[in-house]
């Protein structure tokens, strides 16, 4: 229902425990995508996620999109980016609309949270995921 959508915007303030877990998931994702970087520069289109990312050690939230290593999209269906920047989709519709450019997605579908990494995008940027994330790689065209 629409009220859930309105509430979902504030989900991070309501579900303290869920936010802690979400933090752990994003930490795993970002460390896997940038295994050698000491500081990962993250840009997000959702201001309410700023605290979450900043609380992850080794993550720096930047306001300028062009200096970011990765763009985390929660709302924007189409985004401009530099060719060396990664894009990560945090919504099913965002993933569907940007299949050709996103490196992966973390989103709700079929009543459960899903995590995927897109094979050809990983190959293009030369990333080999750790063993525990290999099963989340999908060959999506």
């Amino acid at each position: 229902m629409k009220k859930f959508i309105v509430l979902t915007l504030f989900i991070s303030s309501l579900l303290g425990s869920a936010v802690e877990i979400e933090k752990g998931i994003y930490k795993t994702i970002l460390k896997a995508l940038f295994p050698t970087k000491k500081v990962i520069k993250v840009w997000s289109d959702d201001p309410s996620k700023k605290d979450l990312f900043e609380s992850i050690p080794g993550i720096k939230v930047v306001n300028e999109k062009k200096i970011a290593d990765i763009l985390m999209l929660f709302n924007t269906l189409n985004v401009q980016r530099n060719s060396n920047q990664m894009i990560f989709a945090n919504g099913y519709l965002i993933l569907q609309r940007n299949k050709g450019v996103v490196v992966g997605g973390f989103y709700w579908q079929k009543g459960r949270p899903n995590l995927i990494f897109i094979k050809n995008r990983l190959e293009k940027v030369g990333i080999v995921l750790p063993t525990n994330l290999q099963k989340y790689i999908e060959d999506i065209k």
Partner: protein
Amino acid sequence: MKVGSGFLGMVLVLSSWLNAENNYQNIDYLLEKYKLESDLSKITKSESNGFVDIFTRDDIERMQAKTLFDILKLFTIPFISRTNINSTMFIKPSQKSMPMMGVRIFINDHDISASVYQSGALICGSITLDNIDHIEVYRSSASVEFGNETSSVIIKLYTKEPSREEGGKIRISGDDKGSSYLSVYQGKTIDKDREYFFYANTNKINREEYYNKGYPLKSDSSNSNIYANYDYNRWTFEYGRFQSESDPFLGLGTQATPSGGDIDTTYNYLHITKILENDLRIQSSVDIIDSSQYFQDKNGIYAGNYGFVQNYLLNTTDKIVSLIFDKTFKYNKNSLYIGGFYKHKHAEVEGNFDTKSLSFKTHYNLYSIYLEDKYNFSPTMMGIVSLKGDYYRYSSSEIEDKNKYIFRLGAIKNINKFQIKAFFTKTYYAAPLISLYSDDKNVPYKTNSSLKFSQPTLHSFGIRYKEKKNIANFRISYIKLTYPIAYDPALGFINKDKTFYVQYEASYTHKFDIKNRITLDVYHGRRKDMMEYSPPYGGHIVLHNSYKKFDFFNMLEYRASYSDYNVNVDASYDWTLGVRYHYSKDLLFGIKGENILNKGYRQIYKGLNFPISINDRKIWFNMEYQF
């Protein structure tokens, strides 16, 4: 103990797995935990509305629940049974039954209401659950924050959120008695402002057949459910339909010897919600309920002033139009909720009783205003004050208009791992229209236009202990009931002397890990006169377990012995065991045994010299595929 040894054996086997190191890899574990911790019930539940029990999506799925009746089996006070015409009824321990006005069911914010019988609780057993995300049950509630008609037990069903589905599911089930169940749903977001959800279900439930004096007591039913919603920006449009055709079971005959009949009910509603930019919420809805009850009994069915008849047909049509508005204001330490509604409730009644007939129409308007203020004395202490005024205006000059008021005081205090709740509620249950008004023949019931509304006064206290792996609850309620309503064939509907009732509940849950837990609960209810017309106490042991690709649900329900109408019923033990196998992420198979010991709760009925089990011994087979 011989009875339940199978269940206890299962408990031991499953318990041996619980200490085994879980096989989750770190990210799998995080995703699973994120799913559970992000359950929508954590957003929608309101601790200030009374004592709340939650059935999460995970609980409902693991139980392989198909209808609301499957969930109601876990209720303590009130517990469930079925009426002589095969509908769901609620019973408080030791009591004969609970007034149906005492329980209200909501689907999202829509009250499943009625004009003739006042509450939609009668159809609740046939509400199917595949479109439902989670269920909240509130007790000792004043109904103010739900902004609708009054009740002390509120069952809120929340439908699945399209943005969490982005796909659909098909479910097919069948049992060893030839029952079948098919449901399908799909939910999608179209763009940032639009989303939809569609659900359809059809099912045929075959029940055990009994005989009384050579007459078959059948209670098979065929049901269908449709639910759809469409969200656009701050508009929500919802449509729901429940349709049910049922055998008459015992019927209404005084000797419970039905020779034919059927009960057909169709419930349609449309509900529109608009949230304005200033967060004022406006809701409007239309409900149309058509019911046809036909009974044949050669030994006589009592039909008010027509006396005894052999053929009894009663058709009712309810039309309800509602307009509701509400808004929450937050300032400093206060959260002030203000609302109001207008309801027009129209009823058409037609009947044929052998050669005689009946036809009348009536309606009433209900105006309501309410407010609730929650004041945070400190971060750990909240006080709640609720006030509601309901103004009933009847079209019939015979019925006196009524102004009724609800008052509620509450306090919630958190002390470390303990939470204490205390509520004082002065409320009322509106008398069903069918008890207040008929045509001048007083058929099929002897009505009483000067009947007073029942007025419960509730004193409730609860304490909860909660830490990472353990949750314990204790609740006690004292209920004083003024003007209880009863039906006497000679006198018709009457108000009886005031009485009181005391109820106790305790529960304990231990979580072994995120997928394994055990819950135990016990309950007891006592009448003023100490009579026991139903089990005075009972309890459940419930186990949720997972092992590799298997999920297990175990429930043993105990209800004490009781007697009524010179029929004795021994203590009951109802064991349910469900096993699900996840073939893949999207495909699962399940099997579920119900009333495995065939010693489940049996209901005593007037006119019948043996009790009848409310749950048949059955095996269900289940397949679910997500797409």
